[in-house]
């Protein structure tokens, strides 16, 4: 599968939702997706371009822009192209549709992104903490403004 074909057909199919699409190399392409269309785009990628699994889902915090980004790396067992799909979310109410119904293994990745960044995945089958204890929910430790050490870590010890 050719990187250029994928990008062209993706922008052709979703002219409104896809923006800033580009090719980094033969095997790496990138695009921004509108947050309301993420699931739809994933379904299209899976059906049309053999993008059959997710490499990862993660969040990145940009406090200056007052934005969080949800980043999906979508890959295939049939061809070496990895697509980086990003969605911009407002920092005060980050919400995006879950893609678990399209990619089964998004389940844990989304749970982790939720507990670390506070990105809420709508219609996720089981959105709860994965690696952190339940009482840390709401601290969003991987956001840049998390106080962390030493203000928060020792609070239960003294």
């Amino acid at each position, binding site marked *: 599968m050719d990187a250029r074909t994928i990008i062209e057909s993706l922008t052709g199919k979703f002219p409104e939702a896809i923006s800033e699409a580009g090719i980094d190399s033969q095997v790496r392409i990138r695009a921004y997706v509108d947050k309301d269309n993420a699931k739809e785009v994933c379904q299209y990628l899976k059906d049309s371009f053999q993008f059959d699994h997710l490499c*990862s889902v993660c969040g990145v915090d940009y406090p200056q822009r007052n934005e969080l980004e949800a980043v999906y790396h979508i890959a295939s067992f049939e061809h070496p192209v990895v697509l*980086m799909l990003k969605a911009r979310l407002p920092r005060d109410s980050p919400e995006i549709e879950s893609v678990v119904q399209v990619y089964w293994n998004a389940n844990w990745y989304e749970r982790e992104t939720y507990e670390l960044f506070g990105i809420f995945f709508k219609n996720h089958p089981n959105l709860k903490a994965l690696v952190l204890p339940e009482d840390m929910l709401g601290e969003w430790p991987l956001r840049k403004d998390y106080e*962390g050490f030493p203000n928060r870590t020792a609070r239960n010890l003294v």
Partner: protein
Amino acid sequence: MEEMLESNEMIIHLGPQHPMQPGPFRLNLKLKGETIMDAEVELGYIHKGIEKILENKTYLQGITIVDRICYLVALTNEECYVGCVEKLLGLEPPERAQYIRVIVEELSRLQSHLLGLGEYGEFIGFVSMFMYTIKEREDILTLIDMVTGARVTHSYLRFGGVRDDLPEGFKEKAIPILNNLKKVISDYEEMFNSDTIYRERTIGIGVLTADAAKSLGVSGPVLRATGVPYDIRKVEPYLVYKDLDFKVCTETAGDCFARVQVRLDEMRESIHIIEQCLDMIPSGPIFPEGTSYGRRTPVMRVPAGEVFHRVEDPRGEMGMYMVSDGSDKPYRVKVKGPYYPTLQALPPLIKGTTVADMVSISGSMDGCTSEADR
């Protein structure tokens, strides 16, 4: 899970400490007699916050941190991290350094598979297997120790090269150890194949079809045992893998037996790769000439940008996503380990099997919870 119990059902918590586990995680099983009706994995017992730590360390300091993601495969973790930074810097290690990296990483794959095989034997009651493999693993660790100066957490790779050149007499010492290993791999194969109990406990147990494995998103030996020849070293060659002759080992059965067989075959391929490297390795510098990168890289700033780099870990596809904002510390690093999706696929795989088989299936994944939790 608790609310929907019938009168003849019960819940058993396996772990966080249990002999069949490669590290602490909790497995909640809903049982009806011996049959597993439902399963759920709880993580977090060894969460180290490595992604957050990396954001607060300089790039060079980060090398020691990624070692700790999983000590068994520290060198592949380093390769992934260093590869990300090199891509951002536009730096390519000289050929000799690339060959040295391939040698140590394949040695690392050998010792990881050896430990995995031994542990698997132990999980299913074949305890003496562990004593055989741990002896050979020690020889491999001695070789790695000779090059890197450490047995498990090496901090050996550097941006654009490796910390030290191969020591004198490395090839002479490595050849007999590898020849011996070739012999014992055949012995292990014979031992596994002739053991009735082992065959009963692995053949036809935990069968994963190719389509199921793909949709679960697993990689590495677990995927290759279903017949999918997917290996990052071939799909997206890094270092000098494209110049080396090796094949991707696959099996078709997709059961526990096939997974172990894939690992045995892969060890033979790894030995083959190391032998080629020892013959083909050119002389020359181990850092790119005309740059300031070396053993003591000064405080370096990495150009702003983002990159996703993948390498083939002994357990599958390892990836890192790195965002740089132009400062001396990474802005964000996402570590995507290979065992994370494999562990996620465990509950659907063990549903409907018995508790005893669950141990066999979970063990054949050859996991590392430390890497799943990070």
